[in-house]
């Protein structure tokens, strides 16, 4: 991993892009990194485009601005591709990870000539099948971890299991589904 990795999340209000960015910060924190996880607040309403950010570094980062030249972009809602300039400033040696049932080849023409890696994962389908509901968070988190290599996959899976046990202490029945969603996503993410 580079000394500093910067990630931008695009989602819609209510989909949990902010939560996912905080979970990623947690996962990196647990491997000894310095982390920042923060949303960009606007007039919050369900369905409106929202942005969240992560900085993950080996030294404390003192910068408190938004991220304009991310190494990675995660798009939690495919429909945002036409509404938001999701690849703005995205580094060519980085990657974009999109929640979509389409292949990277099908998506790439929609990305305004972006030349870096294009990755897709059908987080909605995985979530429906494993959790019975559309919570794309967990699969998207797993996909960006797999694509970016910010955290070792094995350490990540172990860490998430512990954190699910803590988070869902009162509803243990959802732990297994979340773990299956996580693992499936790491296997099924298509890198193009």
């Amino acid at each position, binding site marked *: 991993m580079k000394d500093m990795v910067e990630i931008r999340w695009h989602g819609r209000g209510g989909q949990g892009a902010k939560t996912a960015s*905080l979970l990623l910060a947690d996962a990196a924190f647990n491997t000894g990194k310095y*982390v920042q996880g923060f949303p960009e607040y606007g007039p919050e309403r369900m369905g409106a485009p929202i942005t969240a950010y992560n900085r993950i570094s080996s030294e404390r980062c003192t910068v*408190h601005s*938004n991220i304009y030249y991310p190494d990675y972009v995660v798009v939690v809602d495919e429909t945002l591709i036409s509404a938001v300039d999701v690849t703005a400033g995205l580094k060519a040696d980085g990657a974009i990870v999109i929640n979509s049932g389409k292949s990277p080849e099908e998506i790439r023409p929609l990305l305004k000539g972006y030349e870096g890696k294009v990755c897709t994962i059908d987080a909605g389908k995985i979530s429906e099948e494993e959790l019975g509901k559309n919570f794309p968070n967990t699969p998207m988190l797993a996909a960006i971890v797999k694509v970016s290599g910010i955290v070792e996959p094995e350490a990540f899976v172990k860490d998430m299991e512990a954190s699910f046990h803590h988070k869902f202490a009162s509803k243990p029945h959802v732990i297994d589904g979340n773990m299956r969603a996580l693992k499936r996503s790491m296997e099924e993410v298509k890198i193009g």
Partner: protein
Amino acid sequence: MGIRERLSGNEAVAVAMRQINPDVMGAFPITPSTEIPQYFSTYVDNGQVDTEFIAVESEHSAMSTCIGAQAAGCRAVSATSSCGLCYMTEMLYVAASDRLPITLAVSCRALSGPININNDHSDAMGVRDTGWLMLFAETNQEVYDNYLQAMRIGEAVELPIMICQDGFITSHAIENIELVEDDKVKAFVGEYNPKHYLLNKDEPMAVGAYATPTYYMEAKRQQAQAMIDAKDVIRKVGAEFGEMTGRTYGLIEKYMMDDAEEAIVIIGSSAGTAKAAINELRAEGKKVGLIKIRSFRPFPSEDIAEALKNVKAFAVMDKDDSFNAHCGPIYAEVCAALFSNGVVGPKGINYIYGLGGRDVRIESIKTVYAELDKIVETGCTGETYRYLEVRE
């Protein structure tokens, strides 16, 4: 060695409150009161603290509650931001003049209008003359550390204290933080033993009495003296905190100032972004530095004059505007500090920046230093009252 954690700025303040276990929290429980009372209320509910949590219908009442509790002899705390702080204003003066060392956490945010929820310093700067001590933080770590020092400072000089951080930028951002162990916090903060308090049956007293012109001004003079005395207390408590944690605090922080020819004076989270800009400019051989104001009240007049006396040019960054057709509040105070300390050499300009959450980037700060380059080159400041990165 402390406890490695990652918390948002609001969580960090709530954790500090839990560790301190204050007697009373008076708080308006919904926005714009910040998440702090919400987090803290779970500690109350879980029995992790025995604080009396008094949920009230307004910030005016929140501060009134704190005033009553602190006057009775309790440690009282609250938290707010933006228009909530405005709504408290009347009672902020009462708290200060009654010499009640209440602790108020402020996550600084813009004021309407246009309607905006994001960070700037309009709320805190609007109450800068209420007689409260005011410490500002760059990071989540600093807001936590400042909170742990707040009661020691406020109680020593019998003045209320505001612990300010940047709304959203640190208040809602997760960062690494090193927490101090609970027992160490308790030992450092200590017990509150007020000299005079309402519930002391052996010393009947009145709080908030009427003062005729014969007495009013003496009361104010004593308030002013307490603020003057606070400078040494802040340094002393900051040094003692440093012995415990390795993180020492004063009234200001200087960054790369030893040989600096150009400097900016700044407050809050953008100081960190400015440090990154300085690192890049230093790598190009530019002699640039920064002064971060930690204590805005009391204002560190001598420290700032001393730190700026050898620079050729400086820019003071104000994250709000006084709308006086002249300058922002920090610039006014910095210039007054220089003049009263006999420093007249450096050329200074003022930037109003970052209003309503306008993002402050490394490039934004570099723009400021580029302007300072021009001033050093030409010897001419041009317009001193400027807006940074605004469409006109």
